C-alpha cells in the first residue's frame, strides 16, 4: 500500500505587495506632513490649562504680537492700523475665519486692547489666544 504524501502548504507571507503598502503609507505621511517653519516673531507664549485645539487648520489666520510691540501677519510686519483692513479682507474671503493671536506673555494689555479694537472693526470676532499647556 502506497501512502500518498500530502504536499506541504507554503507558510510564507507574500511579500510582493509590501512595497505597495509602504508606498501607500509614505504618500499618506507626505500629504499629511506640514513642513511649517514659523515665519513669525520671536516670542514666549503664555501658559494655560484649559486650552483647546482649533477645529480646523484651514480657517485660521495667525497674528503675531511681540513684546517689543511688533505685529506680523503672513510673515510680514504690519502697522497696528492696518489690522482692520487685512483682517476685513480675510474675513470677507472666509466667513469662518478664526484669528489666532500668538502674543508674547510680556505684552501689555494696552497693546491687546488696540488689537481687540482693530479686530472688532474688521468684524473678525472669533479669536483664539495661543498658549502652551501649563503643567
Amino acid at each position, binding site marked *: 500500500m502506497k501512502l500518498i504524501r500530502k504536499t506541504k502548504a507554503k507558510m510564507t507571507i507574500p511579500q510582493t505587495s509590501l512595497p505597495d503598502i509602504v508606498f501607500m503609507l509614505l504618500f499618506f505621511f507626505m500629504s499629511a506632513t506640514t513642513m511649517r517653519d514659523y515665519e513669525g516673531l520671536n516670542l514666549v507664549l503664555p501658559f494655560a490649562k484649559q486650552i483647546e485645539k482649533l477645529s480646523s487648520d484651514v480657517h485660521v489666520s495667525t497674528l503675531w504680537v511681540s513684546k517689543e510691540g511688533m505685529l506680523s501677519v503672513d510673515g510680514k510686519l504690519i502697522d497696528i492700523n492696518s489690522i482692520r483692513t487685512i483682517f476685513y479682507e480675510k474675513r470677507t474671503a472666509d466667513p469662518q475665519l478664526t484669528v489666532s493671536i500668538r502674543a508674547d506673555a510680556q505684552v501689555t494689555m494696552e497693546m491687546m486692547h488696540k488689537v481687540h479694537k482693530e479686530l472688532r472693526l474688521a468684524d473678525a470676532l472669533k479669536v*483664539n489666544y495661543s498658549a502652551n499647556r501649563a503643567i
Partner: protein
Amino acid sequence: MALIKKKKIPEAEIPTVSQADIAFLLLLFFMATSTMDTEKGLGIILPPEGGTIEVAKKNITNLVIDPRGKVLLDNREIEIADIKKTVQALTSQNPKMIISVKSHPLTKYSVYVKVLDQLKMADARRISIAE
C-alpha cells in the same frame, strides 16, 4: 566557420529589490518629521463693534485686573487660583451671569490669559471683554 560567439546583450534593468528599503527610509523620515499639530489656545468671541446691550446689574460681575496682576472680583481682591471656585458658585446661582473682564492697560497679557483660563475652567459661558 560555425563557431562565432554571440555577444551577450547587457541587461539594462534597474534593480527593484531595494525599492522597498528606499520607500521605508522615506516613510520613516516623513513619520519622524511630521508634526500633526493644530493650533491650541483659549477661544473667545469678541463683542461686535458699536453694539451696546443693556444688562441688568444683578446679571453682571465685574472682574478687574490691575497692573500688578491683582484681581478684583466685584471690588473684592481674589487670588487667581480661587477665581474658578468663586465663578462656579456665581454661575450655578445665576446661569445668566456675565463675567465682565476689565484689564488695566499696563496689565501683563500672561495674567489676562491666566484669568481667562480660570474662567474657562469654571465653565463660564458668558464672558465679556471690556476695555
